[in-house]
Each structure stands twice: as structure tokens, then as C-alpha cells.
């Protein structure tokens, strides 16, 4: 019952493996990338595609049951919501200066359009803490 019986099962297994690998690289990027904005790239793209692949694999394995549509709904939600939360977090990260300017090649927004400098709120920005300001 639970074994691999058909071509669909093989494809489902491949999807599950690839999706899990992408989730692993998302975690790795989250740990290795140097600032919040880069970490958000890791948390958005491989993550969304990994979940998409895992949902497709599960839908193939559970074909015929009524939860298949629910799985595809989760995949679509993931594709729609990942950019939204990334955008909200990114905007706040930029405005609170959690950006390491020493790593920026180009910064066309300048230093936040005439806002008072220095970190605001309750904690220091990453780049400033590392330069010991």
C-alpha cells in the first residue's frame, strides 16, 4: 500500500526530494547570508519553490482523495503571500537601516532621503554594530 508502484509515485518522490533540498538550502542561506535583505531572498524564493514542489508531490501521492485541491491551494497561497511578507519586512529593514552599506555596490535610495541618521527604535542596525559605531 505504501510502496512505490507507478510512474506517478516515482515523479512524486523526485518532487519531494527536490523540494526538501530547496528547503535545506533556504535554511543554509538564512544562516550564511550577511544581512536581513539577503536573508529574505533565501527565505522567499527557494522556500516558495520548495513548498510548491512538495505540495505537487503530495498531491500526486494522494491523488483521488478530496484533499488534493487543498494542497494546491496551499501552494498558490505560498506563491502569493511570500512576496507580500518579504516586501513588508524588506521595507522596514531598509527604513530602520538594517542594511550593511559596506556591502552595497549601488544605493540609489541614498541614506533614506533626508531622514535623521543613525539607527532608530530599540536596537542597533547590523552593519553599525559590526563596525563598532
Amino acid at each position, binding site marked *: 500500500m505504501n510502496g512505490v508502484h507507478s510512474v506517478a509515485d516515482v515523479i512524486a518522490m523526485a518532487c519531494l526530494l527536490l523540494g526538501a533540498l*530547496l528547503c535545506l*538550502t533556504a535554511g543554509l*542561506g538564512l544562516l550564511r547570508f550577511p544581512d536581513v535583505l539577503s536573508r529574505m*531572498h533565501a527565505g522567499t524564493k*527557494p522556500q516558495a519553490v520548495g513548498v510548491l514542489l512538495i505540495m505537487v508531490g503530495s498531491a500526486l501521492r494522494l491523488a483521488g482523495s*478530496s484533499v488534493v485541491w487543498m494542497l494546491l491551494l496551499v501552494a498558490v497561497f505560498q506563491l502569493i503571500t511570500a512576496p507580500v511578507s518579504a516586501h513588508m519586512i524588506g521595507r522596514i529593514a531598509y527604513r530602520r537601516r538594517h542594511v550593511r552599506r559596506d556591502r*552595497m555596490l549601488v544605493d540609489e*535610495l541614498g541614506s533614506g532621503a533626508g531622514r535623521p541618521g543613525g539607527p532608530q527604535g530599540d536596537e542597533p542596525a547590523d552593519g553599525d554594530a559590526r563596525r563598532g559605531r
Partner: protein
Amino acid sequence: MTAPDVALRRLRDQLPLLGALVLVWNLLWGTWSWANLLSGIAVALAVTWLLPLPPVTGGAGFHPAAVFRYLVRFVTDLATSSAEVAWSALRPRGLAAGAIISVPLRTDSDLLLTMITESLCLVPGSIVIDLDREARTIALHLLSVHDLAAVEAQRAEVLATEERVVRAFGSAADIAALDRNPT
């Protein structure tokens, strides 16, 4: 304009949202039946009545060939971008420098701008971090660029994405605006 007229117009503006809610309700139940359809319509009406949203207007076109081209490109972009980010997380060298650029767009429609930013988040190398609605300018963070030529290539890519979205889903006026200011 009389009161029922206004209510009718609001209902027409909300119609796509109602349809989407009914579809989601049916997918959650997993099976299709008349009872699910009717209860879905009831729930959708209740949700839009209790939690009203401003109507989405403008930019409602649908061009099948362009939509198909957009979808194919979107899927390949999704695959390449996640492979790219995964590879830069795995490789020992790590990341090159990042960049923040701002790009002026030519579109002036809430719906299209939303779709453009959603697709930009999932194409290689960029995340939208700010959107100035009046100036129609978006700010993007690029994950890893080696030199200024790569930055310019990304900028051209953003404008190409905008063009694909507008040609797929824009109204005639939006496409005309695109043609007035070619890249």
C-alpha cells in the same frame, strides 16, 4: 444616482473578489456540490459585507497569447531564480555585493503594479522593498551583483517584466502608455 444603483455598482466591482472567494471555499471542501456552491456564495457575501475592501478598478484586460507567454516566462524565472539563490547559499565563496536600485515604471494602475511587484519578487535576483505610488517608482534590492553592467541588466529585466505583465493583463490605455515610452 439612486441608492440601489450605487449598491449595484459596488456589487459589480466586487464580483471578481466574490468569485475568487467562492472558488477557494469549494477547493477547501475538495468536492463540488450545489450545497458547497450556495454556502460559498453566502460566506463570500458575508465576508465582503463585514470586511469591505476598496474596489479594484482599471487594468482589466486579458490577452490569451500574451498571458501564455507571461506564464511560461514566470515559471522558468521561478525555477532559475530559486536554483540561483540555492547555489549562492551552497557555494563556498558566498555572495558578491548587493545593490539597491530604483526604477521608474510607466504603468499607472493599482492592479497591474501589484502584479508587477509580485512577479518581480520571484524573478532572479530582486526583491521589491519600496513602492512610491505617486511617482510610480519602485525600489529593489538585488542579491548579488558583480559590477555595474549587472545592475543595468537587472534594470532592463525589470522593465521587460513590466512590459510582459502589462501586455498580458493591461487595458488598451495601459498598453498605449507603454508604447508611448518604449524602453
